[in-house]
């Protein structure tokens, strides 16, 4: 679950999907996911998978490096399907539903920086919740730098070695405990900053102005096409 890497992909991509605005991508996601969830047709779900794969290719995303993220929905839905759960749904449809939806969300995350996603979420979510989302996001990147430093130190001192699972686990746990302590310090500092600036709910401030461009046509068309395919099949 490499959040930092996905964020890097979202911030540095130059494809049309990267340039498209967040609302148009949300529209595509909403339409696509809705139809994937209500569909029972394996053909529609397989076609959806192909469309999503094409979108990944168009976005020039390193599919091989992201593919492992689909392991969890694939595994869980497979267990669901193999156990005979899922009612009238065929096992293939069940797996495709879970994997396609997850792939769409990963596509959104890889092509849209988090602050844009939050900006849009702030329309639907309470201000307090969006504030916590922002603090979490910022804290994650502050803390990951510290944790990476700790892990480098551990590796250099032979604290993480192949085949020594218990010893590695002990050292990883120590690193996490130290990171947690530092997170308390970070919490104190963030609180002081909030106090100093005079906190009022919704410090995210003004929502980002949406700049529509020709690139928005891609997600809008894909979303509409998904709907058309659903009704045609």
């Amino acid at each position, binding site marked *: 679950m490499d959040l930092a890497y996905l964020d890097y992909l979202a911030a540095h991509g130059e494809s049309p999907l990267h340039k498209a605005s967040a609302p148009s991508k949300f529209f595509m996601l909403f339409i696509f996911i809705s139809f994937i969830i209500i569909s029972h047709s394996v053909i529609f779900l397989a076609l959806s998978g192909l469309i999503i794969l094409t979108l990944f290719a168009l976005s020039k995303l390193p599919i091989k490096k992201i593919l492992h993220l689909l392991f969890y929905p694939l595994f869980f*839905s497979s267990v669901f399907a193999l156990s005979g759960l899922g009612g009238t749904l065929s096992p293939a449809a069940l797996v495709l539903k879970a994997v396609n939806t997850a792939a769409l969300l990963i596509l959104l995350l890889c092509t849209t920086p988090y602050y844009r996603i939050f900006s849009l979420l702030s329309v639907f979510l309470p201000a307090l919740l969006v504030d916590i*989302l922002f603090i979490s996001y910022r804290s*994650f990147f502050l803390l990951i730098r510290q944790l990476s430093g700790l892990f480098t130190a551990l590796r250099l001192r032979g604290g993480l070695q192949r085949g020594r699972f218990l010893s590695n686990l002990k050292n990883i746990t*120590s690193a996490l405990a130290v990171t947690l302590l530092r997170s308390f310090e970070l919490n104190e500092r963030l609180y002081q900053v909030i106090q100093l600036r005079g906190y009022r709910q919704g410090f995210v401030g003004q929502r980002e102005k949406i700049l529509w461009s020709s690139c928005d046509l891609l997600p809008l068309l894909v979303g509409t096409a998904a709907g058309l395919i659903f009704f045609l099949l």
Partner: protein
Amino acid sequence: MSHLHFPDGVLPVYLWGAGLIITGVILAVILYRLGKQDQVKKLPLVGVLVAVMLLAMSIPLGFLPYHLNLTVLSGIILGPALAFVAVFIVNLFLSFMGHGGITVVGLNTLVIGLEAAIGFVGFSLLKPFFRPTGAAAAATLCALILSIIFAFGIVTASQLSYTEIMEVTGGEHVGCTHPGHDHSDSQHGANPLVEALKENTPVGFIQIMSAAALPGILLETIVVAFIIGYLARVKPGLF
């Protein structure tokens, strides 16, 4: 995988819809109280602990296909209400990474929020009698086992048809959708809930997932107990 994150598309709409509504109501109450009580001091702590949970999940554990969660740890530090908010945010982040679905964010939050709440209650109850490490280990173990049972309950509920739910909840019986479903027992006074559960409990699924979850549960218990022990030594006022 000490707990389950349901992916999209595997559970019926009425279940994940109910999950979203219940989670929404709980969140609204918690956030309303948080805003009223002017608990600004706790706001960054929730955010920072969400970040720590996401960081812990990012750590690869060698050959084991598991990740740490630290949900119980967050529950112990934040308390059940704020931990519920933290869990919701973590689930929201995770759903964008394919780890648990977006439509089932509500259900996943309920499952993992329960884990945090049980962890908090268990630790609070055991703390006077045991050392922090032991209390944390026992609380984590109980919380993880109970949350996974709750998740299995959700999966079992997803196997009940509408008519069975109506029977179980005492609603109007409108006929059975299962061709081979014999209602003779329920007509003779047997508990319809027990009967419906007997027939629909997905034993195979529960067996597979229990076996898969067991190493994760042990791993999480050890890590949380160690971290709590460490914090109790270097920051004794925390607990």
